[in-house]
């Protein structure tokens, strides 16, 4: 069930053969102990590959943005009227290939998931690290601002900000990336506060290590586990919020295929006659979120010492 291909998501690319072998061993152990988590990890990887395949066009059978008026609302496995194209999942109300649109739509979801997670977690981790390490007034101000941001539901806040900036994929992306900073800040700050008291930090300080060095070399490696776990949840959340914004028409704009937008546009107008227009993108979103949640759970169980042994 498992393969070495999840290595990239679990550990740093190894340089020496011995660390490569140990990474493989750890991975196999993870897969044996948590088969569902390993399958979910593989699913995440497959989705990333599908997104790349959609972006480069390798996996597309037709241009996802081309209208073909004569081929409107065709069913599964149908051939176009002129006999030159083939639609695996049929077409939408404008005669666009549904399969290619769903594959292409993976691109935006994965881009949001990975992009928002990496930006917000980098910035959040930095903020949490410095906030906990510096402490004092700086910490107090940062934490109050974060408290405040967390009182508003992410989606409501995102909608409010998008209403000001106007709709658009990249605007939505940056807004989400910034609005997702509070949680990583909280998590990292909490972990740093507990790690900071450790003897090895004191030892490093007594040896004359600079603050920067202590933060990066001694504290950061010890708070990596909660960050990795959090990342998988941020990915899932970012994908759902992007889909929600596009669903409301303020995220990705037509003709760019986004799963959320597909659900609301043709999906809602034609749901009585062609429910697959809504069902397929909906299932696609659910599958991605499902995979990243399951993978995150498995990682949490693996990395959180309190939960070790439970399932």
């Amino acid at each position, binding site marked *: 069930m498992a393969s070495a291909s999840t290595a990239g998501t679990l550990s740093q690319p190894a340089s020496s053969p011995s660390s490569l072998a140990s990474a493989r061993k750890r991975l196999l152990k993870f897969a044996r102990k948590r088969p569902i988590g390993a399958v979910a990890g593989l699913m995440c990887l497959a989705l990333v590959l599908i997104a790349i395949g959609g972006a480069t066009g390798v996996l597309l059978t037709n241009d996802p943005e081309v209208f073909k008026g004569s081929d409107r609302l065709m069913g599964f496995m149908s051939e176009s009227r002129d006999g030159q194209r083939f639609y695996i999942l049929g077409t939408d109300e404008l005669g666009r290939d549904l399969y290619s649109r769903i594959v292409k739509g993976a691109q935006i979801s994965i881009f949001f998931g990975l992009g928002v997670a990496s930006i917000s977690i980098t910035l959040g981790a930095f903020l949490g690290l410095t906030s906990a390490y510096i402490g004092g007034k700086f910490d107090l101000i940062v934490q109050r601002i974060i408290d*405040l941001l967390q*009182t*508003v*539901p*992410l*989606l*409501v806040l995102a*909608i*409010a*900000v*998008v*209403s*000001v*900036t*106007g709709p658009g994929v990249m605007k939505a992306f940056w807004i989400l990336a910034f609005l997702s900073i509070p949680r990583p800040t909280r998590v990292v700050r909490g972990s740093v506060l507990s790690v900071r008291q450790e003897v090895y930090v004191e030892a490093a300080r007594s040896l004359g290590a600079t603050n920067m060095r202590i933060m990066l070399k001694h504290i950061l490696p010890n708070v990596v586990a909660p960050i990795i776990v959090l990342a998988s949840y941020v990915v*899932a959340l970012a994908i*759902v919020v992007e*889909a*929600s914004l596009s*669903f*409301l028409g*303020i995220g990705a704009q037509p003709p760019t295929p986004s799963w*959320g937008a597909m*659900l*609301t546009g043709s*999906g*809602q107008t034609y*749901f*009585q006659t062609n*429910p697959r227009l*809504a*069902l397929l993108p*909906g299932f696609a*979103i*659910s*599958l991605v*979120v*499902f995979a990243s*949640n*399951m993978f995150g759970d498995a990682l949490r169980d693996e990395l959180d010492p309190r*939960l070790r042994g*439970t*399932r």
Partner: protein
Amino acid sequence: MQRYLIRRLVFMVPTLLFVTIAVFSLIRVMPGDFITAQMGESRGADPAFIERLREELGLNEPAPKQYFSWLGGIVTGDWGTSYWQNKPVTAVIKGALPSSIQLGLMAILIGISLSVPIGVIAAVKQDSWIDYLGRMIAIAGVSMPNFFLATLIIIYGARWLGWFPPQGYQSFFTNPWGNLQQFGPGAIVLGAALSAQNMRMIRTTMLETLRADYVRTARAKGLRESVVIFRHAFRNALIPVVTLLGFQIITTVGGSVLVETVLGINGIGRNFIGAVTQRDYPLVQGILLVIITTTLMVNLLVDLSYSWLDPRIRY
């Protein structure tokens, strides 16, 4: 306890003040206003007319002056007039709030009544088929975005049950069946997500408390298993669940925006989307204020409930 409560309530004032400034400036930092949103298509509109409109709506005043007149209005109950609906903001919110509150309460009720029994059973009978089934349903519930679930209800409710979202507000007191038809599906969608997360949390914390020493002591005293599970394990498992529930109420407020829009419920969420697309500042501001006050109150209630659940916690 009383002092703690008073201190918390007093602290809420500067927070809310800061929130009002944040909300107010957020909406004003970017170019464009209600008038440009309305006139978007007709570029050639008479500039003098636009100017007169701005004057009438008070959009020409300096921002601080606008802010203070808005703030003064909030205190005295005049929240401004919704440009878009041409009604006082308070009237719009008053009209929409009962729907949202009912939807939210029903969702929480559904969420709790599903998650508590399943979560407890899943933990007590760990690794049984009911545990696996419950966890699978929970994960599926967490993964399905609520607007997708709502769309499914729209599609298959109409196909299989002949259900269509009722038009207009159906009061529970004059038309209970119509009211349930209006709010039931939305509450189920929001409640499903709630119960899925809750169930996972209840299961995890129950697994921890069931292994605790005091549970072993309770068993050793010869107490009945049901007493051990509910009086000893479950009550101690509740603290993280209540914290989660607090977060969830906030998420449910966010989720109701989508669910109300899809299922045609004229609540706060749907009005918020409308106000946002129309750039109806007074209404956006008013609704954000209601949402933030609600979440602050929820957070306070969550903190207060800790000491009720765990007598060791005293404020």
